[in-house]
């Protein structure tokens, strides 16, 4: 599964809430000039894992948020089961970017996806309904309230995505 969304949308904490391994942290705080230089050449990955049994492991990949790593989106999109577009509901300035990422991923593959309206525990968070309008989402697209720091909330998003994948398989078969 691919967890995508704009820079600082909450992808790392989303994966970290359910992963059984320590998620490799991304978007490290830049504290000095030397690190700033380094950041121009490196990017961390968000990589989480949920083991089902001996022969099935779910990998969660968080895409780098920065545009200069766009090429990774296409790479990650191939072979994915589905994807979650995480939106920081408190940052309207990132909505346009979220829409662009969503459209880009859709152009790569007709894989099921859901939109997670993150940081719903914040006072100034936009509601999922308002986000649906602003992101011009089709009524069939699920937009789910989310708090990426809370395990149950993340579980709900992943389960809804898996239900969408099942529906997609049913349609494929029909």
């Amino acid at each position, binding site marked *: 599964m691919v967890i995508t969304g704009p820079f600082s949308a909450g992808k790392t904490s989303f994966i970290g809430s*359910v992963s059984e*391994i*320590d998620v*490799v*942290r991304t978007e*490290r705080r830049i504290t000095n000039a030397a690190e700033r230089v*380094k950041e121009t*050449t*490196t*990017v*961390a*990955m968000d*990589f989480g*894992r*949920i083991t*089902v*049994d001996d022969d*099935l492991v*779910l*990998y969660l990949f968080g895409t*780098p948020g920065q545009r200069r*790593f766009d090429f*990774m989106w*296409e*790479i*990650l999109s*191939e*072979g994915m*089961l589905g994807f979650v577009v995480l939106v920081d509901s408190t940052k309207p300035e990132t909505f346009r970017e979220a829409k662009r990422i969503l459209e880009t991923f859709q152009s790569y593959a007709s894989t099921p996806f859901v939109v997670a309206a993150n940081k719903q525990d914040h006072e100034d968070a936009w509601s999922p309904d308002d986000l649906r309008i602003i992101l011009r989402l089709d009524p069939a697209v699920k937009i789910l309230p989310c708090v990426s720091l809370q*395990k149950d909330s993340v*579980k709900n998003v*992943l*389960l809804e995505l*898996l*239900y969408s*994948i*099942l529906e997609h*398989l049913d349609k*494929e*078969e029909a």
Partner: protein
Amino acid sequence: MALKGNLRDFTTTQLFNLIHLAKKTGTLTVTGGQTAHIIFRSGKLVYAETSVQHGRLTQILLSAGKLTSDQSRLIDEKLKGRTDKQLGHRLIQAKLVTQNDIIQSIRQHMLDIVYKLFTWVEGSFQFDNSLQSAETKIMIPIDLEVVIMEGSRRLQESELLMEELPNLEASLRFVDRPDARLRNINLTVEEWRIISYVNPKNTIKKIAEANKLSDFQVRRTVYGMLQAGIVELIPPVGGANGEKPKENIPTQRRIQPPKQSTQERRGVVNRLIDRIRKL
């Protein structure tokens, strides 16, 4: 008079030192497993090609990612017979590439060849004073001092990497039980690209080909990832020197998901749902 010899008696480093100090002009031809032609002007490296890595401008720009394979093929068809200098002018005029793209791509191409040459231990060489292809090829002067220092450093590193990662027919997989070492790791773009291909079915060799990385580059990157505990090696079928795995990714293709029936996929999704519910 031509300078002739054998790499066993006279290493690439020594040869380059001689050319640099004597400020020689001419063409060095080294014949080992393949043949390399290296041109020098007044002690500076100006051109390099091998029988495997040809110096055709379109191929160099394609390898550098400045042209697509379709563009490269079309240009070769339409501008057949043009020299690289003529071709370069046309490509800049057509705004397909910039002058800097051409310079940097050729420079990198030359350095890739020359650094590889440092690792050759067998082969004969000949240096003569003629400047082969000088009229048609684009020559980019590079100071030999820097090349010699970097070449020697890479040689040492290459020997270490060869010991640590001798067989590129091995595959990679994500570590099953990553420990605390997996914290706060930053990956380079190269590492990211390799990560995207990590799959027991893809040999390291194939990953390098798909990413247009040299053996040295892929060894160095994979070695770093092994040390970081992100991935682990799967020896090739038949042991360290065994046969290749039967399934390999085609070059230029990304990893494809395993082909499963809808029923199988539904089974997988249901197992995932059960697991996530229990989290």
